[in-house]
């Protein structure tokens, strides 16, 4: 039986695992981790282990289909690709002629690899409104880094001696890091974990700061106070390379450790211990999550406060600290430069109308890649201002991603034309006018860059299931129907990959010759302390403790701590005494993915609400009791999962479930004013037993 090489792209681009696929008579029989792959070294996570049921899931979309009659009527008719794409093209051109190209939104959920090409399609069509799920994921931390340092770097794990992990559980989010992290721990590298939960990572840390959700900024400022008080900061660096240090000192002088303790719920001795451990162990690295620190109303500033730590302690852009490596393709640092920017942008922003969200979240829009802000979409649909929106072309759209998901769905349904491309017939698909079936990584060609300086260009190991197609081919073909084939290499995917990879002198032909992948030859070398040559790429050329950009925009220049709108400290005699934290990662799911895969789904079958036994007993709730989880916006029926790993007073509900959907409980405009990120993790609720 032949073993064919491919990789799994179920989760995020920092992981993805090399796969040995056994194929018999054109059918995938078994998958295993690829031993020679530097990312996963023969291992896989639980999601990858379930690949067979993922590829052959019962609810795979098999054919392009058009919904005749009303949306949601389930009156679906199978049509050919040619017909589907002709309908889409003629509708889009009609809408463009009547309302302008900007009235069409092009959206990308998961996976991510085709994104530059989708943005190219949007811009080629004339719409600035290419939007992604990054509007609630990694983009806020990215912009926070840009405003503070001009760029930011991941923790340089192999060389660090102390890892401060701020609210991430890499064992469940980036499983390829698991081995190296555990090895570091065995070598004696100190682990500090900041997490409102005793996660499987926190449980292995030397020090766990279990803070009240959303108070990350107060905790970081508390640690900074200790660093300054005890002179544990890098005075040379601060003097030469920072802007606003004096303002920071003034602020922390007014905010003693007792304040940080009161805000965060973490004992001040522990804050001191963490600051000392991080400040005195050299080098020390900071690991943050893509989004958990920024899913708060003060999240952007909280994250900025956290990001001050590496700079202040002299750990920025040094070996074993937070090392800035150039991003080469789709958020990864493979060392092989690409033409990603060139492919993404066929027009400059000046040639295009303003993007959705530019009016409301100008900083995010200006300093992230030129995307539209997904969170602003429903509001512009409703208001029609500054211009009306008419069509939504989704790739992996799930309306439940939005806070107040019902509000977003309702907005979506008021548009004239809705299309979604997906692997599965999700409940979002049921509301579309047209659905297009996509193929999994096993059935398509995909180019992948790994941080471990590794590249793969795969060929399909099985034929696409039924009539499904690679997302990239769908984009190319859609472009052809829109008369944009000259922008899309006349349909030749390999020519596109050649152009993408030209700066590192790879061709599709060459990459295909090593199906198991290849180490990048002569990877880009990034030195250390790059700021010493040309300063930081910020307005002042320094690390901006006080951000010039924020000050000019009328926000606090200093990353000060503010309580969220729904603060659990507020004095009003609320009926919602508990803090609700949503969206923590579970190992067997990634967001809404894998819930349709039985081997994963059965591992956490019920919609479980994690709550502390002390909160449960106060409410006469026993293990596995059904309960109502209620916020001012509504309530859902869930099952109590009593666990001491969560703080008393805080309950945790997983997101991504079709039913019950916790995002129904959140107001659609509960957004961070700077980043536009939803306060998914600083909500208030009540839990009561179902009678």
């Amino acid at each position, binding site marked *: 039986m032949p073993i064919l090489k491919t990789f799994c792209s179920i989760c995020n681009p920092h992981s993805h695992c090399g796969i040995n696929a056994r194929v018999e008579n054109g059918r995938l029989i*078994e*998958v*295993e*981790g690829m031993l020679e792959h530097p990312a*996963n070294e*023969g*291992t*896989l*996570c*639980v999601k*990858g*282990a*379930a*690949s*067979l*049921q993922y590829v052959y899931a019962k609810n795979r979309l098999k054919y392009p289909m058009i919904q005749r009659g009303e949306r949601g009527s389930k009156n679906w008719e199978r049509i050919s690709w040619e017909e589907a794409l002709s309908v889409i093209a003629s509708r889009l051109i009609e809408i463009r002629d009547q309302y302008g190209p900007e009235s069409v939104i092009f959206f990308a959920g998961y996976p991510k690899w085709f994104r530059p090409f989708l943005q190219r399609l949007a811009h080629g069509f004339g719409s600035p409104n290419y939007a992604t799920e990054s509007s609630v994921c990694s983009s806020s931390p990215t912009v926070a880094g840009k405003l503070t340092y001009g760029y930011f770097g991941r923790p340089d794990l192999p060389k660090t001696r102390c890892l401060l992990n701020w609210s991430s559980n890499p*064992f*469940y989010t980036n*499983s*390829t890091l*698991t*081995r190296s992290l*555990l090895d570091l*721990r*065995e070598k004696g590298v100190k682990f500090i974990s900041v997490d409102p939960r*005793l996660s*499987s*990572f926190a*449980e*292995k840390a030397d020090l766990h700061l*279990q803070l009240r959700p959303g108070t990350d900024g107060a905790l970081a400022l508390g640690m900074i106070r200790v660093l300054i008080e005890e002179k544990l900061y890098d005075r040379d660096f601060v003097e030469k390379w920072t802007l606003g240090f004096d303002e920071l000192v003034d602020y922390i002088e007014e905010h003693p450790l007792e304040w940080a303790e009161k805000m965060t719920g973490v004992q001040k001795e522990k804050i001191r211990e963490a600051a000392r451990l991080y400040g005195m162990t050299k080098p020390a690295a900071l690991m943050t999550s893509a989004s958990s620190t920024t899913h708060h109303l003060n999240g952007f500033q909280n994250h900025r406060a956290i990001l001050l730590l590496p700079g202040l302690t002299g750990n920025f852009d040094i070996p074993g600290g937070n090392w800035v490596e150039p991003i080469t393709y789709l958020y990864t640092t493979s060392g092989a430069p690409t033409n990603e920017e060139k492919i993404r942008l066929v027009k400059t922003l000046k040639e295009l109308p303003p993007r959705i969200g530019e009016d409301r979240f100008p900083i995010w829009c200006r300093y992230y890649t030129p995307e539209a802000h997904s969170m602003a979409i429903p509001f512009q649909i409703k208001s029609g201002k500054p211009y009306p929106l008419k069509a939504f072309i989704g790739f992996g759209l799930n309306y439940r991603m939005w806070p107040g998901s019902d509000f977003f769905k309702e907005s979506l349904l008021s548009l004239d034309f809705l299309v979604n491309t997906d692997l599965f017939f999700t409940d979002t698909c049921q509301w579309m006018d047209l659905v297009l079936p996509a193929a999994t990584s096993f059935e398509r060609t995909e180019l992948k860059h790994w941080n471990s300086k590794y590249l793969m260009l795969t060929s399909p190991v099985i034929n696409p299931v039924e009539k499904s197609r690679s997302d990239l081919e769908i984009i190319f073909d859609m472009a052809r129907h829109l008369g944009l084939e000259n922008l899309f290499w006349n349909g030749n995917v390999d020519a596109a990959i050649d152009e993408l990879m030209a700066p590192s002198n790879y061709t599709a032909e060459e990459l295909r010759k090593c199906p198991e992948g290849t180490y990048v030859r002569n990877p880009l070398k990034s030195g250390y302390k790059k700021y010493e040559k040309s300063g930081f790429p910020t307005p002042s050329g320094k690390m901006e403790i006080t951000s010039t950009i924020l000050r000019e925009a009328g926000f606090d220049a200093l990353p000060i701590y503010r309580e969220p709108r729904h603060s659990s400290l507020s004095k009003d005699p609320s009926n919602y005494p508990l803090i609700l934290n949503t969206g923590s990662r579970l*190992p*067997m799911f990634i967001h809404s993915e894998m819930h349709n895969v*039985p*081997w*994963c*789904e*059965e*591992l956490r079958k019920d919609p479980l609400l994690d709550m*502390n*036994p*002390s909160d449960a007993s106060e409410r006469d709730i026993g293990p596995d009791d059904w309960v109502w989880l209620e916020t001012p916006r509504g309530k859902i029926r869930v099952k109590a999962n009593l*666990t*001491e*790993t969560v*703080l*008393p007073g805080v309950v945790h509900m997983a997101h991504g479930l079709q039913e019950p959907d916790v995002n129904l409980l959140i107001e659609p405009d509960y957004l961070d004013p700077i980043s536009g990120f939803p306060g998914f993790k600083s909500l208030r609720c009540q839990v009561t037993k179902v009678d």
Partner: protein
Amino acid sequence: MQKGFYLDLTRCTSCYACVVACKAHHAIQEETVYWRRVLTLEGGAYPNVRVANLSLSCLHCAIPACRVVCPTKAIYKRREDGLVLVDPNFCIGCKMCLMVCPFGVPQFGRNGKMQKCNFCLDRLENGLNPACISICPARALHAGSIDELSLLAARKSARQLIRSTDPSFFI
């Protein structure tokens, strides 16, 4: 030489990869049986909480209670490597084995016959580790002969689990 497992408690993260690898390799349908399970055990109360992540399957005991009570001798122990196996042709589904197993290992699927971890015999024949071991992203789970395992375990101050059935399991 007796074969068995070693679970490095300092590394297991309750990620469930082993559970699904087992199901996928043995083509076990969902909502039927588990040949391997992951248990996350908690002790204490906030703020002094301890958590243990446990990945468990048949422990291929040296003195398997299940074999002793099996009325039809369907359960047997291989001479060459001490693996405890079950011959479905002889199993009558009486569940005596389940009653005596200290770890609740025996599983009964739709055909009513006992089934459980067989150490991935098919992989063993090809010199491969069981599927749960190969997949483990934490490298927390190990398989091998008791001698090899005891060396590995000693480095982490882990030891063989002591029960009357003498499980081939280090923890």
